[in-house]
């Protein structure tokens, strides 16, 4: 586990250690760093306070001060504690009834309608349920239309008949019963703020529908207010879980910790993109690491998985194993990586690499050189003689020495890959300086 927080903590605690035995006061000093990291991630300050106190007790109890690597130990306690708060409860949906009603609640713009459709798709395709959506947001212009279109896109029916939100909801329930739907997902209207009108409407729905789950849909970018929002909905409606949306951005998502802590309710799903399939089961470990700013390696891997061509990737691994990796594959690989966006952006996701500058132009040159070769040359670089190299250099606007440099680096990389045979996908690729 290496990251900024660990480094900071090690730095602080090392300093004290050199002065002798670590004391509780030194630990406090170190925990200040933890506090800052959490606050920067938008975790509610009260939650932070309580959390840091708990971590301190644990750290003292586990005799971390005697440890050789107290910084790492503290971070471990922090992480475990985070995971515990974020995921101590089962996050599976209760779908035991027929139909099971899922009531979706939340503020305006939190992503209720999108989350409803995503959940419908998830349940229909992955859990094999017959799902009905109910559009009860009669307030926002075209909200019903939005759910209808989404329903159409994911191939799930949408019920929207009725004059009031409650009428639509109860009508949908009847319809679901008559037509043997397994699950009814009720999308509701949001408000700019938590007010009486909204809560009264939702309470009435709650009574009439007796939902199996009341899911609070909340924006991962929410700041300190997250606590109030979660508490308000939980007090009035007894929510059963949380769906955290817009986690595909760079928000650290401290709101997750705040809401889980004050309500004691599990985060069940996260929204990680704009497409109907971009809904994922919540993993407490990942969230903990994200809040702590431990880079977003997992996110990077996911992004890669989503955008890279799987067949190509498998092909790549196989070729590396069999030592058949050619310049042709190298070019494919460069193109794949570039699909993910600029390299600097990718590097930001790797802990400690955020500041690294990458010369995108150098990569352009590499690609140009490869493009100037014939397929035959890329597959069998050994045929490259002086005149071929000259042609390639003038074709790609570089010097022959640049072509040689590329070939040399490629050879080195190939040797490296040989050593890695059988291990995981090598990250070091033969580009850069």
């Amino acid at each position, binding site marked *: 586990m290496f990251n900024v927080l660990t480094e900071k903590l090690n730095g602080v605690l090392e300093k004290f250690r050199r002065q002798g035995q670590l004391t509780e006061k030194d630990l406090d000093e170190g925990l200040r760093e933890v506090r*800052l990291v959490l*606050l*920067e*991630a*938008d975790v*509610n*300050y*009260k939650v932070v306070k309580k959390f840091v106190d708990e971590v301190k007790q644990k750290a003292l109890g586990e005799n971390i001060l005697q440890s050789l690597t107290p910084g790492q130990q503290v971070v471990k306690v922090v992480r475990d504690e985070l995971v515990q708060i974020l995921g101590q409860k089962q996050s599976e949906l209760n779908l035991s009834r027929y139909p099971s009603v899922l009531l979706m609640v939340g*503020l*305006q*713009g*939190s*992503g209720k309608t999108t989350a409803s459709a995503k959940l419908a798709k998830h349940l229909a395709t992955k859990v094999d349920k017959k799902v009905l959506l109910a559009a009860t947001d009669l307030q*926002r*212009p*075209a*909200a019903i*239309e*939005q*759910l*209808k*279109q*989404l329903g159409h*896109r994911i191939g799930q029916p949408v019920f929207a008949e009725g004059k009031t939100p409650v009428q639509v909801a109860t009508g949908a329930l009847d319809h679901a019963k008559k037509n043997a739907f397994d699950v009814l997902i009720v999308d509701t209207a949001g408000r*700019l*703020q*938590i007010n009486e009108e909204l809560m009264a409407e939702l309470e009435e729905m709650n009574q009439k529908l007796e939902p199996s789950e009341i899911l609070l849909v909340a*924006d991962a*970018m*929410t*700041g*300190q*207010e*997250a606590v*109030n*929002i979660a508490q308000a909905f939980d007090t009035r409606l007894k929510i059963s879980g949380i769906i955290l949306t*817009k986690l*595909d*951005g*760079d*928000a*650290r998502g*401290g*709101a997750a910790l705040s809401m889980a802590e004050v309500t004691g309710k599990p985060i069940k799903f996260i929204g990680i993109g*704009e497409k109907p399939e971009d809904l994922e089961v919540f993993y407490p470990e990942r969230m903990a690491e994200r809040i702590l700013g431990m880079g977003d390696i997992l996110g990077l891997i996911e992004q890669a998985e989503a955008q890279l061509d799987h067949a190509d990737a498998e092909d790549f691994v196989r070729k590396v194993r069999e030592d058949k990796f050619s310049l042709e594959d190298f070019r494919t690989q460069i193109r794949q990586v570039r699909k993910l*966006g*600029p390299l600097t*952006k990718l590097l930001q996701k790797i802990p400690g690499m955020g500041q690294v500058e990458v010369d995108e132009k150098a990569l352009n040159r590499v690609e140009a050189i490869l493009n100037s070769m014939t397929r035959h040359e890329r597959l069998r670089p050994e045929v490259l003689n002086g005149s071929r190299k000259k042609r390639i250099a003038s074709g790609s606007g570089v010097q022959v020495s640049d072509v040689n440099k590329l070939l040399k680096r490629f050879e080195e990389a190939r040797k490296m890959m040989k050593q890695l045979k059988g291990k995981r996908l090598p990250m070091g690729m033969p580009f850069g300086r």
Partner: protein
Amino acid sequence: MSWLDRLKQGLKKTQENLVGKIAQTLRPGRRIDAELLNELEEIMVGGDIGIETTTALVSELKNKTAIRGLQEADQVMGLLREVVSERLKKAEGRFALRTDGQPTVFLILGVNGSGKTTTIAKMAQHFKELGYQKIVLAAGDTFRAAAIEQLGIWADRVGVQLVKTTAGGDPSAVAFDAVDRALKEQAQMVLIDTAGRLQTKFNLMEELKKINRVVEKRLGREIDERLLVLDGTTGQNAISQAKLFNEAVKITGIVITKLDGTAKGGVIIPIAATLKTPIKLVGVGEEAEDLKEFKSEEFVEALFATNGK
């Protein structure tokens, strides 16, 4: 209700949570010491002011109390108002409305759910009331289901023109058509809606650059206002949003919506303090009248309002 009253009402929660709590801490008779400053820091961070700006504010308070030889806690409130005012004052900005007969073109940007479409509707209504007759809306959110319909309903309600395409169409083309029509029909204003996008999505930010480019090519000049709509309940991610959107297309102003929905409207302070982009509109409610030009004095007045105590 006057705008100041609306503002006061909209900021009430923030006022109570931030300034109210600070006032309790700064009770008369208390001395200014490290503990007091720590408490202030905690309240400010809890109000979404963010670590960086909070630290800056508190150290400024510390310096100023030292320089002025202040020792009593209740003297700090005036200072706080002063340092906050200074920062908000710098962030004031007005719309660059054209007076040369050409349409003023607004490009509205932001992450998903920040309130772009509603902001456009409110702006259109506002300008209509100010006497601008010919306003064209461009339904540039061709991605989200029913976004075009949503803007269409608003266009009908407000009584302005809508230029649109089919869902999934090219947003640049819609923006181009809207500007093209505005120029040909001598409209006074064009408001271009865009699909919500998270600031970290490379391809979507590229799409935004393209919209900007295409519109400016047709205009033969720069777009007048590129407004970033920020949700007032957002935490410190607001800063990242502003930075990355600004990197993609230079934003000329910020609109902060939903400030009534939060007790932590403090996020406006780091926005003002750390970004060079002016805040142009603030929204404190659902009504069209709840979105108005940002004037720092009024805002400070509402934020620091004492409710008779």
